[in-house]
């Protein structure tokens, strides 16, 4: 479903701040894979997701989604294949627009927008049901401004918007990191439910090792712009936090001392 072939990206090339963020990275995801991504700060987790989403062009390498090479497509065109939820709850929704407008915008992702009315009556009914499924009481607030919602509610709404079109690929970029633990758990639970319901191929970046182990069918660990550990199936089910720390030490050596605090 997703193929990253030797993707490479250097930031601030030729300056003192030069940073090789993605180092000829390779990754292949099968349809329905739910992959959690962990790694220390600056390992390239978010950079990989941004590369897939097309925020900036790659230095080299190619990205193939469902057999189609999207490497040269601009961000807004790739959006037809990709649903995204960001770390910042403000980033995924338009705060000055209301809930149904936000959903209607997402429902038209990858389609031509023309001079038809922006939302249809039957859509409203469908949105109400979907919002009721979230269990956050948003179903009675379709015309409320999104700016009035809490961070958790906004993330849940973004999740709904990202999955509305059943995208080929769902990118979750530390989407619970800015929430309090209780809300984060709730949003994670929702993510699991939505991914399973639609069988979405998913990449989820997280800083939390326990979450990375508990969710998904495959786990990858990154360091210095490379994948240094990749485990799935039975192996992943037996995985413990201790195993991960050991793997990290083995694969990245010196780095571990710096990253231990962040990963633990």
């Amino acid at each position, binding site marked *: 479903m997703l193929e990253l072939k030797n993707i490479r990206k250097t930031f601030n090339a030729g300056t003192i701040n030069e940073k090789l963020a993605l180092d000829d990275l390779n990754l292949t995801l099968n349809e329905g894979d739910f992959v959690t991504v962990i790694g220390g700060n600056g390992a390239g987790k978010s950079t990989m997701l941004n590369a897939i989403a097309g925020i900036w062009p790659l230095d080299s390498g190619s990205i193939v989604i469902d057999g189609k090479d999207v490497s040269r497509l601009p961000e*807004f065109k790739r959006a037809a294949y990709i649903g*995204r939820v960001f770390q910042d709850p403000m980033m995924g929704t338009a*705060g000055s627009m209301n809930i149904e*407008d936000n959903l209607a915008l997402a429902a038209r992702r990858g389609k031509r927008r023309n001079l038809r009315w922006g939302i249809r009556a039957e859509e409203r009914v469908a949105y109400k049901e979907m919002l009721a499924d979230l269990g956050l009481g948003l179903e009675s607030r379709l015309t409320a401004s999104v700016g009035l919602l809490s961070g958790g509610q906004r993330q849940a709404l973004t999740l709904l918007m990202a999955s509305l079109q059943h995208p080929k690929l769902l990118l979750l970029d530390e989407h619970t990191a800015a929430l309090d633990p209780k809300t984060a758990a709730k949003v994670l639970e929702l993510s699991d439910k939505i991914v399973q319901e639609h069988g979405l191929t998913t990449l989820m970046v997280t800083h939390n090792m326990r979450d990375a182990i508990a969710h998904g069918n495959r786990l990858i660990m990154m360091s210095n712009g490379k994948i240094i550990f990749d485990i799935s199936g039975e192996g992943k089910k037996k995985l413990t936090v201790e195993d991960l720390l050991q793997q990290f030490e083995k694969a990245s050596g010196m780095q571990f001392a710096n990253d231990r605090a962040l990963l633990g």
Partner: protein
Amino acid sequence: MNLSISALISAMPGAIAQGLIWGIMGIGVYITYKVLDIADLTVDGTMCTGGAVCIVMMLAGQPMWLCLLCSFLAGMLAGLITGLLHTAMGISAILAGILTQMALWTVNLQIMGTPNQAISLNNYDLLVSLRYITDGGYPFYQNPLFVVSLFIIAIIAALYWFFGTEMGCGIRAVGANLNMAKAQGINTNLYKVLGLMLSNGLVALSSALISQYQGFADINMGRGAIVIGLAAVVIGSVLASKWAKNFALKLFCVVLGAIIYYIVLQIVSWMRINPDYLKMLSAVIVALFLAVPYWKSRYAVRRKITKTTGGGGDA
């Protein structure tokens, strides 16, 4: 010195008519400044282009509606240039507007041939004119207050429809959250250009009406227009903040804002204040109105902090 109230009152219909026409310009500024979240300075140039096109075409004997349509299209073209400078050439929006505005000075002079082109009601059938108010004896349907009000109702209705369509929602999303818009597959560059074109088209239409109203187009008529447009928008949003949630009502408040601006201006000139001070006064008024929401939010935060610390002391 003659500060008679009757002189002020008799000047009011003219001031309100001017406010109404500038209200159309204010709606144009609203689209860029509020909806798209871009401060577009092209309008200082477009506010002359529309009038120049309209007056020159009318002098050449073209029908009124064609003149207005061409003014609108000329404004859209100016918006297109600013949009391309911004999106295709990566120039910041504010600078792109200034560059187009600069270039329009030359364009406007070329259109008119001279810095000033006058048109007289004696020889041409004008759609709106100050003389329909001052001369007397004209039927109500020729009164600029009536004619321009019809224009405004039609424009607000059309914009209400447009910004409710899929395309219009896309433009709103671009202004509300650029990141989200891209993530939802919206061609943000295209929609920015569309918004700029629509905005400048309306400004040029307003310019065409105002030059008929005053009986001439002048190379300087757009100077400082952005400040007047912003005045209409900020006064309008203060009016709207309490009760207007609906998009059409918000646009209506912008028009009210422009009318209030021109009434204040009329009072100022009635008080015989040196007209040289007017631009300074306008700038100060707009600066204050722009500062109000900022001050309000800071005050609200401080009050919240005092409240919580106070509550902590009690407990």
